[in-house]
């Protein structure tokens, strides 16, 4: 063996690999950005779920004859845990109006039976709470020590369905996603790379027909993967349960329900196939397609995972979130509790999203942008003509995220003010400054620091002052923030110990983000994305990144909407200054509301009053957006 040749080859291969920015992105940014982000959001979902569960008291009843006063008194002493009803039956538990029933044994005063529904989470929790209460024992001298047996009213088949519903829907969605992944790449980027695309596009076939055929092919393969996995996993899980139970008593598999649950595979497969084909259609090569689809795969897993662990109901916005809705529908079908309205909304929204993705795929597949070779960089870094690219935008977001997550968040946990200031001025503004220097473009050019018109400033101020109410109501409707989390946020804005005054808070939470966050997000990120995307798409993605950057599931929607509005302002005005002003106004109003606790008072307002506030808010935003429209100065065009 010639070690020198090994070393030469090693050096050459590493040099090549490290010059491939996509490889670097997958290797570094994916594990360091996407995984922490997903785990953080998943943890927040779990925390929110626990808090919701803790907040809900269990409805219980005590029946049968015997000395019960002490037990009943103990239950009544825990009003946050229990609501004691005067009577109840097993049928009430099955019907869902009662969570658990305590049956006393008329012959033995120390014996109780806890009746519950093992296929319902609320009922299981009631059983756990009652068991804990009984295990702690009643006050001395009140009663003899109690022993409790447990009896579930749910048939074995439903319990089997419940157990399967905990894991199978998520696995099935994951398998469908995986089943769509490679076929989608193959029929799009693969076709382009193999040189068969030109041939097909020269034939008299409509783009939509072509893409529809491709999507159906990918969906068929994905659905097949899903069906096979569902069957295999159902059998495997039951075998595991059989081995795990000492008596080899296994809950029945509700095959009818499992079959019904498997029906969600088909719309899910169609949606994922259409989405992946649309994305794959934008890639020139197989490698590029894999690079594009892998992060999207993980992001698509997130809502499905939230649906699986979040114990959400299939209603409202949950029924319209792709991935999450089919997971919830599969779960409900598995336990036999699906409601037609939620199911219909889930199926309808999935088909709508699939159709939209298909339309996008058909539109972009023969786009001339992908027909010609990738444009070469027009100038080397450091030259006067260097501009920020979409790749720069995503790299900057990744770096800012890494700095925030691994450096500044730990500092914030020790010292909030120092951490916040460092994150904003070093992690964001410093990063932009460094990028401006390295790319040789100059800070003003990188962020778009130009003199805005007075009309642009007025419009931006109106948007900044008006957006909060509409955004708050919308996010409350879509994903309500648990009260404890809201209070935590309020305390971080306005410390109870009065350690930070109004001006200090304004500088820290309004001025600082308005300058630093805007410099990064409405600067190189938005401007970089705009070089590859149209204005709407660039604003939407910048808004989403802005929302994700705040690392808070419950603030994701409001910050993302605000991010889109700020991006739109920056694009219309051709200057960063108006979006900074709008950002400042928005944050300043939120601080004012939190300090005066006006937000809490709003909760007691009538529906009509809230409607009026939202309408006024929308009017301000509308007028503001009209004012900023077309205010880009000519030299900026």
């Amino acid at each position, binding site marked *: 063996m010639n070690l020198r040749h090994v070393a030469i080859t090693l050096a050459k291969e590493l040099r090549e690999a490290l010059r491939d920015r996509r490889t670097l992105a997958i290797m570094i940014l994916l594990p360091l950005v996407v995984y922490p982000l997903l785990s953080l959001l998943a943890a927040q979902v779990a925390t929110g779920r626990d808090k919701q569960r803790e907040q809900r008291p269990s409805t219980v009843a005590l029946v049968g004859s015997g000395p019960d006063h002490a037990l009943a008194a103990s239950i009544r002493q825990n009003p946050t845990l229990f609501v004691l009803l005067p009577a109840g039956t097993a049928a009430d538990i099955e019907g869902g109006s009662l969570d658990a029933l305590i049956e006393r044994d008329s012959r033995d005063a120390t014996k109780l039976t806890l009746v519950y529904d093992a296929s319902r989470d609320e009922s299981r929790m009631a059983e756990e709470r009652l068991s804990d209460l009984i295990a702690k024992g009643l006050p001395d001298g009140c009663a003899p020590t109690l022993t409790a047996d447990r009896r579930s009213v749910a048939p074995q088949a439903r319990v089997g369905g419940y157990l399967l519903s905990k894991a199978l829907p998520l696995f099935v969605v994951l398998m469908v996603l995986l089943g769509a992944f490679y076929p989608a790449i193959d029929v799009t980027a693969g076709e382009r790379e193999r040189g068969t695309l030109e*041939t097909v596009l*020269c034939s008299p076939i409509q783009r939509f027909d072509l893409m529809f055929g491709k999507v159906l092919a990918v969906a068929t393969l994905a659905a097949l993967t899903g069906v096979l996995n569902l069957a295999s996993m159902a059998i495997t899980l039951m075998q595991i349960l059989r081995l795990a139970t000492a008596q080899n008593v296994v809950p029945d598999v509700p095959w009818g329900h499992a079959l019904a649950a498997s029906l969600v595979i088909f719309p899910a497969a169609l949606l994922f196939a259409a989405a992946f084909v649309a994305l794959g259609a934008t890639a020139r090569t197989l490698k590029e397609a894999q690079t594009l689809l892998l992060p999207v795969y993980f992001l698509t897993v997130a809502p499905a995972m939230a649906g699986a662990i979040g114990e959400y109901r299939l209603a409202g916005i949950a029924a319209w979130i792709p991935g999450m809705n089919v997971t919830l529908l599969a779960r409900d079908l598995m336990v036999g509790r699906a409601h037609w309205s939620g199911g219909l909304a889930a199926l309808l929204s999935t088909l709508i999203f699939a159709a939209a993705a298909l339309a996008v795929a058909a539109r972009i597949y023969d786009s001339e942008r992908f*027909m010609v070779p990738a444009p070469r960089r027009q100038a080397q870094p450091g030259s006067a003509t260097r501009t920020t690219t979409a790749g720069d935008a995503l790299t900057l977001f990744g770096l800012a995220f890494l700095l925030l997550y691994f450096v500044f968040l730990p500092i914030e946990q020790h010292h909030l003010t120092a951490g916040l200031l460092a994150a904003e001025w070093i992690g964001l503004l410093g990063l932009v400054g460094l990028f401006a220097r390295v790319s040789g473009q100059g800070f003003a050019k990188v962020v778009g620091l130009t003199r805005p018109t007075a009309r642009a400033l007025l419009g931006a101020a109106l948007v900044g002052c008006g957006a909060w109410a509409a955004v708050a109501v919308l996010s409350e409707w879509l994903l309500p923030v648990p009260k404890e989390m809201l209070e935590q946020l309020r305390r971080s804005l306005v410390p109870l110990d009065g350690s930070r005054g109004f001006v200090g808070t304004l500088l820290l939470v309004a001025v600082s983000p308005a300058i630093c966050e805007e410099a990064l997000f409405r600067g190189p990120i938005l401007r970089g994305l705009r070089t590859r995307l149209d204005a709407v798409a660039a604003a939407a993605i910048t808004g989403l990144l802005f929302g994700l950057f705040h690392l808070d599931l419950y603030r994701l929607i409001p910050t993302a909407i605000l991010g889109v509005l700020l991006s739109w302002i920056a694009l219309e005005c051709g200057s960063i200054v108006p979006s900074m002003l709008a950002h400042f106004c928005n944050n300043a109003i939120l601080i004012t509301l939190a300090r005066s606790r006006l937000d809490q008072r709003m909760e007691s307002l009538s529906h009509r009053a809230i409607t009026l506030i939202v309408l006024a808010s929308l009017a301000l935003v509308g007028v503001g957006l009209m004012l900023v429209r077309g205010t880009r100065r000519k030299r900026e065009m």
Partner: protein
Amino acid sequence: MPEPLAVLDNASKSFGTVGAVVELSLSIPGGEIYGLLGPNGAGKTTALRMLAGLLSPTSGRATLAGHDAKSTSAKTALGYLSGSTGLFGRLTPREVLDYFGQIHGLSRREIRARAEVLARDLALDAIFDRRCEVLSTGERQRVSIARAVLHDPAVLILDEPTSGLDVLASRFMRDFILGERARGKAILFSTHYLAEADLLCDRIGFLHFGRLLREGTPAAIRASLGAGTLEEAFLKLVEDRGDSA
């Protein structure tokens, strides 16, 4: 003069600020082979792609058989083949022809009949049921020819069809082109092998940096520039303009 079947009318195509083709006009009637010549990057492929409906002209017009080149009607009249044209590797030549025949609206019987004729003419019988991915370059090119002419199109656009082929395969391709001309097809053909164009083309156009420098029969162009070969003629044209390839 017969009606032109392939027309570029003052067509330009820009990518960003770069003009790939600038105000190019040409028209090819049936029974003519037109050679679009020029070095790499001259704009030949872009011009052909506009005519094939793959790219829209930034300005001007591209039509095939009287229809806008992007339209389905135009594509029905088009047979397109390029040096880099791929085949579906996991399908057999028979399946490839079946797929494209159906897209072109041919019946199963028509496809079978056409495929038999093409298999005989293009010597495909021995490979007709083998996967395309195992075929040699020359065999693949013959399958591609069969695919391009399966529906008997009025216009053939051939983008560097002999690129990468060996002597025998190139000869086969030239014979095929001449045969199609005899059948009344309008053939637009691009190459940077100028000797090949001299052998084949009725008319040629020299393209350089997206502009048509000269158009005419090979003999007329050679004579007008006092050149013995098309290569000399092209170099003189470029030198006269002060450009270099």
